[in-house]
Structure formats: C-alpha cells, structure tokens
C-alpha cells in the first residue's frame, strides 16, 4: 500500500496568485494512496526541503510528488532531498503547476481545477515508479580534438598539460588554421605568427599530444566516456618518420606555379610542399592532382633528391582507430566566397561586386596575406593585377553579413575590428595613401576595442562613410565604387585602386557532414549548437562532446581562446572521476516479447540500440533481440513509441503509467 506525500509550492506568488494552493492540497489529500499533503511558500528553500524530509520520516512516506515548477528547474533538488531522507530518489516526481498552469492561465477557478488534475495525474504515475539505481559507465581518459587552429591548439594544450592524452586531428597538412594566415592582430597589433607559432611548436613537442595532420574523421561510435573514433590519414606521399624537413624536394620540384591556398592563391608553391615555412609538422605533402609523377608517371625528382628516402609514391590512405572519452570540436570558419550564388543554397551571391572577376577586388583574408611579412609580397601592399601600390583603397564592411535579403542575417563580429586594423596597416605601409571604409555600424564591444577603432579614424586618417555600396566596376585600371553616404544623404563615387571586402564568416565546408558523424546539432547556417546559449555555452546537447571557437559562431581570437580553455576545463571535469554516473531513466527491452524487427534501432537518434543474441543452455541461437545500451540511451522514448509489439519501455514513462495518468483525469 503506497503512502504518498504531496507538497504544493506557492513559488512566492508565482503559483498562488492564480492557483488556490490550499484547496489543491486539501483535495489531493483525499486522493487514493495519498497519506499526506500540504502547501508551502517556497518548497525549494531550505525550510521547504526540511519540511519534505521531516514528513517522509514522520509519515513513513513511500512516494513523493512535489507540485511546483518545471522538473527541468528543480527535479534534481527534490530528488536529492528525498534521497537524504532515506527514499530512492526515483520515487519522487514533480507536477508542473507553474509553467503548465499558473503562468499561462488567468481564471483562478479554472487554474485551480487544472492544478488538481495535474497533481492527481502525477500521483497515479509515481505509484508505479520503480526503484532505480544510477548507471555508472567507465571513462577513457583520453580526448580527441578536431581542428588544429587556435581553438583546437589551446584546448589540446590545456588538456595535455593536465596530464591527459590528446589526439589532435587536422584536415590540412599543417596545424595553425586561419590564425597562422593573419598578419597583425587587433587590438594590440602584435604579429599573429609570433604569438601563434610557439604554440604550434608546443603542440608538436608535447609528450601527451598525438598529432594527426592531413587527416579527417571518418567515423565516430560510442558514447560519453567511451568513443571509438576512426581517423583517415590521407596519403602524404612522404614518410613522416624519415623526413627531416630539409626542403630540398620543394626547391627541386619543377612544378612551381601552383596557387597556394594558404596565401589565398596569390602566392605560388611547388607540387610537393608545406603550406608555409613555419608549418607543424615541417613535413611536406605531395599534391597529387598537380604532381607530374601522379599525372604522367614521369619526373620523380623529389624522390631522387631526398637524402633520407622519405618520398613514397606508393603510400595509401590509412585508417586508424582511437579510443577516447571526450571530443572537442574546433573546426573553425571559412570566408563566404561571394562571387556567385552557390547552387541549391538560400544564400545569394554578390554579382554586383565583381569579386573573382575584377582582380583587385579581394577579400579580407587576402589583404592579411598581402600585409603579412611572410606573405607572397613580403608584407608590401600591392595589387594582384599589376603589382602596383594602391593609393586609394576602399574597404567594404558587412559583405554577406547582416543582409537578410541575401540569405545571412547574422553579424560576423570580427569584421569591424579587422577592417579598422587593415586601415592602420595600410596607413603604416602606404604613407601617401588614403583608406575609405563603407560601413553600416561600427561594432566594437571588447576590451580596448572602441579605442582601437577611434584610433584608425583619429590618428590613422581612415575616412569612414556610413552607407552601403551598390556596385563595383572596372574603369581603366581603377575600380569605381558606387555607394551612398546616408549621413549626408548623397551618392558617393570613389575611384579606387583596390577594394577589400569584409566577407561573412561561415562554418567550414563539410561542417554538417561532420556533425552528422558526431551526432551533434547545428543551425541553418551549419554553425554547431551549444546545449544552452547562456549556461552551457561550450557543451553540445550530445554528452561528452564540447565546442570551441568559430565552428559555433563567429568569434575573435580572445573569445576563441577563452572558449577553448573552457571546453578543456569541461573535459577535465569529466576526467576527474573514474566512473561516470548517469540518470537511470533509460529504455529497457522486454526480451521475451521482442521479435527482433529493430524498428527501435532505426529510429534511435543516439545509436543506443544494439542487437543481442539469445541462446539456450546448449548454446544454440534462439533469437536476436534488441538491447538498449544504458550508457548511450538518452531516455527520449522514441523507441517506446515506435515498437510495434510494445516491448520497449522507458523507466518512469511506461505505457502503464501513461494510461494511469490519463485515467486519473
């Protein structure tokens, strides 16, 4: 015989303003099985919890229902209190009479009747709750970091410095990411390479970091604490163990006119190459699409000149499996290529800007390479078309960003600051030049950011024009910029020598495919979604996977580094225990009735359903049934709703309980 205790919370006035809590307590007290009912101003407060614990002991309660706010808010609080009082915590349920009742109704009488119904339903449900024990899963204390830009590097170093092994996977031949491409960084104008490359070297030398460059994630299986990750090591055609990084192969390679993507295709490289001289690892890779040997079977110069014999044309892609307990996703961003409308995309191009057609209309990253001391021009600002120094330069902000009609509504966050920086770098290098900036707003929240922006105007003589540009066209060797100055209300035409577009930040190409492999969610732009915008900003909703950097949304370097360290801290929190406790609200299969149709397996979004063999005592296979791995199951209940033979049930939400709740109405 159950002795159920019901506790009705006023939530200050949040509930009691619309619901007659005393009447609810009185009426529910007469409900069959209820041994005790009362109401209190704040059940979650210390006196409220004491009241609950005392009642459990004095009234010898067997089950508890707390009628208050949403279980998302305080279920943990009350279950803990119940446990302290000596009851199994899963014999406590919450009836939500705030969000589901008092907050959404005005009529006191109707709200009170509804509250009584809600509490009555929960009483019927809790009667059939089972005693459950927390599920423990072992934790593999190794971590995978995907992406070797500044976010991935920071997260990997932080985790490794705590003594845990890190597998760092990077798609490109070198780590460094976009930050390695930048010239100087705002708001201090320190050289990006100078602060970045030491960190890259730290990664290479760290005994706890295992680096896979030129590699991609092929498959992710398992769950928090126990992931199995298959990594594809693409064929580098150079043996990493033998190569000394002397670089002779690159100097002797006869193919030298291949546009280098690291230099935004304005610099050239050989077919066997490292993307930039400070690359980590300093091991070249053969670009098979452009290598004469791979195209025609002739040449092979690199192999002949390589002293240690590291060049290996026969090398194949290789799959490696690594076991890890946590995953940090740090895949970063890409710049929106605006020259044409991508097929099948809601995002429209900017045909009117002639990007890709007019050679001296470049994007912000290309300007970074021009301004970089290690770039293709040695740090001189020169036009890609004729190598002349531009004397009039126009910067256009918000190209792609904040343009709903063009398909991207968000702000790319870093462009205002980097454009201000570009005007300064330009002014430092071209003393007699003039920079103009077309802008909608200058968004400079951040430490020392606004001062930096002001400096570009007040000391570095950049002319800011508030208004947008409608069209760019080539006229002789000038680019005519047709824009508007909305402060004065006139149309403006500037004949520029070069135009720099601050194009929108987008997630890396293939971000959606990777998300599908990882089982994490992403928004319509393919940015990865955090579990909670404010309170869980570095965790994914999928347990054991964390986010760092611009793969989650546009970010600058300081913010990216902070988030990477935060993600690392979350990984370390997970690794601080040997075993992981999980809430036992998971699905169970009634094996006797299961016919092995695996409809449940098809619908499970978490990959929790496995196939299990049932054998008799002689070891003969009787049948194959579904088995829900409690470590992976998220308790969503989709399998329960799908099972045609009604043989999967979610603890706490069994069909029997749901029917009992309906009957209580």
């Amino acid at each position: 015989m159950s002795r159920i205790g019901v506790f009705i919370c006023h939530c200050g006035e949040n509930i009691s303003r619309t619901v007659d809590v005393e009447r609810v307590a009185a009426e529910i007290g007469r409900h069959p099985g209820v041994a005790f009912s009362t109401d209190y101003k704040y059940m979650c407060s210390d006196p409220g919890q004491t009241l609950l614990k005392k009642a459990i002991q004095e009234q010898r309660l067997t089950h508890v229902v707390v009628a208050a706010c949403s279980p998302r808010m305080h279920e943990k609080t009350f279950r803990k209190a119940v446990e302290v009082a000596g009851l199994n915590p899963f014999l406590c349920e919450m009836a939500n009479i705030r969000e589901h009742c008092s907050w959404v109704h005005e009529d006191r009488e109707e709200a009170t009747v509804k509250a009584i119904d809600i509490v009555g339903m929960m009483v019927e449900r809790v009667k059939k709750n089972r005693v459950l024990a927390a599920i423990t899963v072992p934790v593999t204390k190794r971590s995978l970091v995907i992406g070797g830009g500044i976010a991935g590097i920071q997260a990997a170093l932080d985790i490794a410095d705590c003594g845990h092994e890190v597998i760092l996977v990077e798609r490109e031949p070198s780590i460094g990411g976009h930050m390695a491409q930048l010239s100087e960084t705002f708001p201090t104008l320190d050289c990006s390479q100078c602060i970045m490359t030491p960190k890259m070297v730290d990664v290479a030398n760290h005994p706890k970091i295992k680096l896979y460059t030129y590699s991609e994630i092929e498959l992710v299986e398992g769950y928090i604490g126990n992931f199995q990750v298959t990594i594809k090591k693409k064929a580098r055609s150079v043996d990493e163990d033998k190569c000394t990084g002397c670089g002779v192969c690159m100097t002797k390679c006869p193919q030298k006119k291949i546009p280098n993507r690291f230099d935004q295709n304005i610099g050239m490289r050989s077919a066997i190459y490292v993307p930039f001289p400070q690359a980590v690892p300093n091991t070249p890779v053969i670009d098979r699409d452009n290598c004469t040997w791979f195209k025609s079977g002739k040449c092979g110069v690199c192999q002949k000149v390589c002293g240690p014999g590291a060049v290996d044309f026969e090398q194949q892609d290789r799959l490696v499996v690594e076991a890890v307990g946590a995953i940090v996703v740090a895949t970063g961003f890409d710049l929106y290529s605006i020259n044409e409308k991508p097929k099948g995309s809601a995002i429209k191009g900017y045909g009117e800007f002639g990007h890709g057609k007019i050679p001296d209309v470049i994007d912000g990253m290309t300007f970074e390479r021009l301004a970089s001391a290690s770039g293709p021009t040695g740090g001189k600002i020169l036009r890609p078309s004729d190598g002349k120094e531009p004397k009039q330069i126009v910067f256009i902000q918000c190209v792609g960003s904040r343009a709903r009609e063009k398909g991207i509504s968000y702000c790319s966050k870093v462009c205002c600051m980097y454009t201000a920086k570009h005007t300064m770098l330009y002014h430092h290098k071209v003393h007699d030049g003039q920079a103009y900036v077309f802008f909608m707003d200058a968004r400079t929240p951040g430490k020392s950011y606004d001062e930096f922006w002001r400096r570009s105007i007040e000391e570095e003589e950049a002319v800011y024009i508030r208004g947008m540009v409608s069209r760019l066209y080539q006229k002789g060797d000038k680019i005519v910029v047709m824009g508007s100055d909305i402060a004065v209300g006139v149309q403006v035409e500037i004949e520029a020598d070069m135009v720099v577009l601050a194009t929108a930040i987008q997630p890396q190409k293939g971000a959606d495919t990777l998300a599908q492999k990882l089982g994490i969610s992403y928004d319509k732009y393919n940015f990865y979604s955090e579990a909670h915008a404010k309170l869980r900003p570095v965790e994914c909703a999928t347990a054991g996977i964390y986010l760092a950097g611009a793969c989650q949304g546009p970010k600058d370097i300081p913010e990216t580094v902070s988030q990477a360290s935060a993600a690392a801290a979350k990984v370390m929190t997970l690794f601080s225990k040997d075993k992981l406790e999980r809430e036992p609200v998971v699905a169970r299969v009634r094996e006797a009735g299961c016919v092995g149709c695996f409809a449940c397996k098809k619908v499970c979004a978490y990959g929790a359903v496995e196939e299990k063999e049932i054998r008799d005592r002689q070891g003969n296979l009787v049948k194959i049934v579904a088995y829900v791995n409690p470590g992976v199951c998220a308790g969503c209940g989709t399998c329960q709703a799908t099972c045609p033979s009604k043989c999967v049930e979610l603890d706490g939400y069994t069909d029997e309980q749901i029917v009992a709740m309906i009957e209580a109405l």
Partner: protein
Amino acid sequence: MNKKLNYSYYPGCSLHASASEYDLSTRELFKTLNIGLTEVPDWFCCGATPAHNVDELLSLSLCAKNLELADKVEGDLAVACAACFSRLKFTQHTLEENMTKRKQVEKAIDAPLKLDGKVKHLLDILARDLGLERLAAAVKKPLSGLKVACYYGCLLTRPPDVPNLDCAEAPTIMEQVVEAAGAETVAWTHRLECCGANFTLSRPGVVIQLTNAILESAKDAGADCIMVGCPLCHGNLDIRQKEIEGVYKADYNLPVFYLTQLVGLSVGLGADKLGLDAMIVNPLPLLKEKGLL
C-alpha cells in the same frame, strides 16, 4: 515534336504609341517562330510608374483586373514592356503574401483573384519556353560581327525576389538570347544602372547625366549598338542621344534596338517588319556595314 506555344499578349500603352516598333517586331518575330500570340481583349494601362506612387490600391487593382482579363485567354501572359512586366509581377507577389490587400483588391475589381497564371517577359519565352537551341535553329541570318551591349535597366531583374527572370545583379539572359541570334556581346559596366526613367520629363538634367554614363560605358566597351527590353529606357537612350552628345561633346552614334528587332533580323525579317524606320539614331548604316541588310 514540340507542341505549339501559345500566349496571351499584354502589349501595354507604350507599345501602342512611342514603342510601336517593339509591338510590330514582337508580333512579326513570334509569327515567324510559330508562337501564338493573342492580345488580351479590352486590356488597359497597368498604372506604370505613377499609379503606385500615388495610390497602392489603385496600382494593384489596375494590374489585378488586367490579370483577370488575361486569364480568359489561353496560355501564359507574354509581356514586352519591362515596366508592365514589373507591375504585373509586383501585383502577383504582393497579393500572394498579403491577404488584407488581396481582399481589398478583390472588392475593387469585383471579382475573385486567381494568381496562378504565369506572367512572362519575352526574354523568358525566347530563352526558356522556346529554348536557345530552337531559337538558334530558327536563325537564317546570324548577326555575325555585330557587337551588342545588352542593357537591362532597373526593372527586368529587380527587386531580387519579384520578377525572378534571372539573377538580380549579374543576369545573362539577354546576352544568351542575342548570342543565340549570332551576335557578339560586350562586357560592360552599366548594364544594370538606372537611365533616369520618367524623370526625362520632370528632371531632364538628371536623365541626361545618367543616360550619358550608360552610353559612355557601352561605347568604351566597344559596342556597335545597344539592345533593350524597355520602352522607357529606349526613349532615353535613343531619343535623347543626340542631345546628350551635344552636352557632353561626345560622339556615340549607338543605335538602340529592341530585343525583338535584333532577333527578328536574325530570323530573316526585313526592315519594314521590324519598324527600323522608327528609330531616331539611324541603324541602317551600321546594319549595312555589317552586311545584315
């Protein structure tokens, strides 16, 4: 065997007046291409630029009534004038999205609205319904050696979500059509700039400045002539050209053709069937020089 194409036809006021050569050449071209064209009975003005500046409901109702009339004739609605095309498309777009306005308009024209009839510019019909291959197959006298600057003006492709004729800011449909007719096209910068439109009456100074920039750009790009799909643009570029040459001390001498005139020429129509005599900048010396007449 391809089915014969049939359209209802909304010429619009200009084509019965200042742009009669556009009307003539359209009818002759379509006859030659064996495309049926039935003029919408009792059609009237779409309201053009003035109506929607004065009274939106009036503007929408004028077009809605014309659409209703067009619905009674077989086939999609073929429109030649860029402004009529724009207003009719705008009306469909607005009334599809705004139920309040739709109810008001239905009351004004005293008829229920059907908005699923397709409104098509001639370019769309030539390039997509007929298709560039069939168009090219019909060409008897390719416009070889003729360098054409295709001028879209403001209304054919914009605003981006309304006419849906081609990419709003980097269209190619005019170039595709006239290249199918054997002409060369030039890459030039002012394809989509405004000519000043009907300010030609109230602020001619503005129009002269804007139109000059267009003519200058076409000339600089090496064009022999300009091709348009809008009577108002035509008026500014053609009728005002002499005056502009005087103001800017320039020598453009760029004949301004309607797209149907050039395509008509390529399918073998003679000068009399294309209304070439109605053009102010005389095209005959150019066409003779290129061996096209």
